[in-house]
């Protein structure tokens, strides 16, 4: 049936182009912001999601037609963009680029949670108010919404092109993107231009959100994250910061994804995005069409470790704290409290791993939860399928996480700064997508259930107190291991690499090897934590160790102080235990995390205990 396949092909082509149009719209916004502010804006997806919700309220709630809806969406999102720039980011302009990037993560956490609190986390149905009739055009079926999306996107792209090419303000925007200081010396108010870029980008994002909401007939709070990542994949594909590149990248990504889904099934949709993201970062960081553009200059330090004098914890306080932690089950037999602190110890291990990789070795990792996932799945599968004893499967899980995770992180080693953050996020997500799609091994979305419980020397550990002690003991061992490493020659080399990659290389340090060692050591600790979690819960799926977990761990590290091991533990306790203890906060915990992150980056980048 050749005619049928041709029809199917043509339909997929239209689908791909329509989706691609929307990706292009998101990517243009990210490109504008990256160009002008040299910033990967993680809050862009949230603006897009809020645009979708505003559109949904106008159309479904108020029964408005699309014209006024788009105007309201544009105004709300434009204002939101300006507010984000003015109050969230402007003061961070002169900091290392990773600081505003973290601030945008905080903002996106807060915005996503706010929408969840107002509209519930459930998807809301958003039927398109347009007629459902489809027109046949040369054998291709095109719906009214398809046509509208194409028309709006093309109009916007053309208007933006004209604005950038032919207006004074457009020139000022491009001049600012190319050379901020020189633009100032031409009399350009670069702060106003920054705000303008955020406003325009946010308007485009919001309109994209409405259109995708109608296209998939639903809106939901977590749509923000996927859109952000897709926008960036599209952007990278076309050349980071290039507006025409963003359009082409968006269309390409839409087509690749649509045809990929048609060929392999819908669970693969996101895998393509992330593989493209990483592929481009590794093979061609300037994008397909960005050959003549040099990579934007990045400061040499891998991360922003603010200068500070770390608070020295006297040995007797540390021992005292440890004794108190060990005695907790005797003080309170409340199983709920013990569970919370067990969680805190497991998170502390994740935080230790992040503080090692990010704080000590300077590799901003947003994908550390991938190590948890590998550790968890490896240990669970070894125990379930091969019947390994728990002690062995835990250790093997940790080792596999360290080895496999580091191997997957390898492409990151040649990147720097913001790109490291983006790539580690993508790799964390690839791990997640592999788990989701390798059904034969991981059972896909259903996850693994009936994982053998924790045990030691054949004795099952199922009571809360022994589990608590087990977790605490692991944390202590992990901390001692890490302490030993950071005090050694290895630790000094890591810090040298963090301070100045070029100088470290000049002194003969093989950067790749030391970055790998940091990820291996951190991966062991995180992998152990993930393995323990799997057996403790007896059930895991691909969402147990989601990307937000990585960012939560990073927030703990920043709260405690980058590279500061006691800080990591304190941060973990604060962010796991406190929202639980103050129950009203528990529902809004991501709002809390977001605000904490935002405030820390702005007011106390050295964290509570100071950086090391």
């Amino acid at each position: 049936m050749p005619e049928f396949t041709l029809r199917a092909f043509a339909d997929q082509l239209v689908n791909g182009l329509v989706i691609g149009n929307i990706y292009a719209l998101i990517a243009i916004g990210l490109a504008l912001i990256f160009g002008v502010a040299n910033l990967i804006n993680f809050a862009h997806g949230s603006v897009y999601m809020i645009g979708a919700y505003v559109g949904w309220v106008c159309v479904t709630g108020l029964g408005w037609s699309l014209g006024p809806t788009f105007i309201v969406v544009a105004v709300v999102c434009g204002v939101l963009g300006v507010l984000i720039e003015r109050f969230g980011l402007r003061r961070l302009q002169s900091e290392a680029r990773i600081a505003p990037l973290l601030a945008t993560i905080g903002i996106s956490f807060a915005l996503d949670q706010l929408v969840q609190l107002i509209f519930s986390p459930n998807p809301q149905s958003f039927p398109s108010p347009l007629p459902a009739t489809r027109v046949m055009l040369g054998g291709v079926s095109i719906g009214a919404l398809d046509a509208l999306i194409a028309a709006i996107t093309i109009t916007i792209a053309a208007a933006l092109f004209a604005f950038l090419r032919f207006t004074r303000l457009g020139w000022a925007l491009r001049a600012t993107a190319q050379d901020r200081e020189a633009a100032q010396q031409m009399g350009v108010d670069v702060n106003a231009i920054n705000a303008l870029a955020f406003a325009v980008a946010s308007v485009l994002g919001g309109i994209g959100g409405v259109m995708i909401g109608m296209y998939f007939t639903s809106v939901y709070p977590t749509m923000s994250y996927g859109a952000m990542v897709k926008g960036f994949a599209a952007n990278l594909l076309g050349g980071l910061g290039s507006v025409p590149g963003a359009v082409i990248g968006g269309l390409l990504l839409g087509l690749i994804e649509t045809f990929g889904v048609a060929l392999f099934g819908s669970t693969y949709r996101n895998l393509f995005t992330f593989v493209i993201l990483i592929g481009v970062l590794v093979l061609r960081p300037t994008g397909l069409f960005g050959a003549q553009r040099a990579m934007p200059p990045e400061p040499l330090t891998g991360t922003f470790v603010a200068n500070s004098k770390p608070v020295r914890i006297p040995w007797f306080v540390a021992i005292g704290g440890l004794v108190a932690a060990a005695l907790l089950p005797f003080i309170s037999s409340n199983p709920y409290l013990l569970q919370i602190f067990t969680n805190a110890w497991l998170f502390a291990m994740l935080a230790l791993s992040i503080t090692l990789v990010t704080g000590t070795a300077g590799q901003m990792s947003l994908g550390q939860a991938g190590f948890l996932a590998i550790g968890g799945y490896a240990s669970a599968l070894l125990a379930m399928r091969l019947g390994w004893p728990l002690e062995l499967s835990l250790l093997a899980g940790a080792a596999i996480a360290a080895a496999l995770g580091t191997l997957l992180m390898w492409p990151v080693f040649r990147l720097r700064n913001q790109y490291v953050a983006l790539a580690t996020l993508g790799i964390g997500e690839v791990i997640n997508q592999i788990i989701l799609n390798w059904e034969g091994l991981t059972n896909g979305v259903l996850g693994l259930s009936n994982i053998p419980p924790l045990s030691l020397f054949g004795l099952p550990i199922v009571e809360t107190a022994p589990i608590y002690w087990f977790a605490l003991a692991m944390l202590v061992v992990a901390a001692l291991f890490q302490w030993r490493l950071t005090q050694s020659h290895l630790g000094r080399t890591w810090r040298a690499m963090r301070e100045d990659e070029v100088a470290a290389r000049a002194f003969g340090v093989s950067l790749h090897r030391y970055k790998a060692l940091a990820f291996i050591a951190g991966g062991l600790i995180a992998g152990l934590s993930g393995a323990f979690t799997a057996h403790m819960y007896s059930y895991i799926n691909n969402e147990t160790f989601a990307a937000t977990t990585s960012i939560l761990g990073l927030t703990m590290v920043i709260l405690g102080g980058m590279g500061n091991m006691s800080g990591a533990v304190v941060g973990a306790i604060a962010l796991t235990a406190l929202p639980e203890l103050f129950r009203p906060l528990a529902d809004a915990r991501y709002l809390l995390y977001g605000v904490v992150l935002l405030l820390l980056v702005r007011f106390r980048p050295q964290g509570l205990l100071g950086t090391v």
Partner: protein
Amino acid sequence: MNDLLALPTMPTAQATPQASSSALLRLEGIQTFYGALQVHFGLNLHVCRGEIVCLLGGNASGKSTTMKVILGLVKPRAGRVLFDGQPITGLPTPQIIRRGIGSVPESRRIFPEMTVRENLLMGAYTRADREEVRRDYEQMLERFPRLRQRLNQRAGVLSGGEQQMLAMARALMGRPKLICMDEPTMGLSPLFVDRVLDLIQHINQQGVTVFMVEQNANLALQIADRGYVLQNGHIVLEGAARDLLGSPEVRDAYLGGDAR
């Protein structure tokens, strides 16, 4: 303290008290810091209307920072900058530019991805008089025929000398009263160096006051009216250009490296 260090001052015609009233640009007691590191130790200098004044000094003497202080890119911790009799210390850069200061930044800093034409018009960003801007634009192309040939090319593909022309033309498009040039001859071939110097004189004859920072003292002093020598954040020498040109103190204070 500063007076002591500035002792070997040349007796000159221009450096007289009357200059204080007609000075277009004036720096008084500027102290600048980068963190704990002090760059300027009470810097005093002035530029009179119609003059070409050059600030000389070796590496790390604080020359470029002086330029940044004038343009508002670096805020001094003490002292003030007066332009046209008005204090401009601490104003944001764009507002300083709007008062009538044009800038030719160090290493030119043209906008590489924009066309030559767009670069020129960016120079007139602060102006609202469109007709006049058009006239100036035409005039600029008369003066720089090379730029006319390349109007629609990306500025990034121009040669270093052409980029320097563009940077100067761009600054002039703002119709500045004072033009500040940071190392205008740096990295140029000898042929272009002469052209640039001619141009600076030409611009000056049209009534634009010029303040330039230069490392190449001999060249700069040939066209300048007056000069200052900056060393480790102190003005160690000032005077008429022709006096400085032959003075052994300039050699000692600044050209020491060359004389070796």
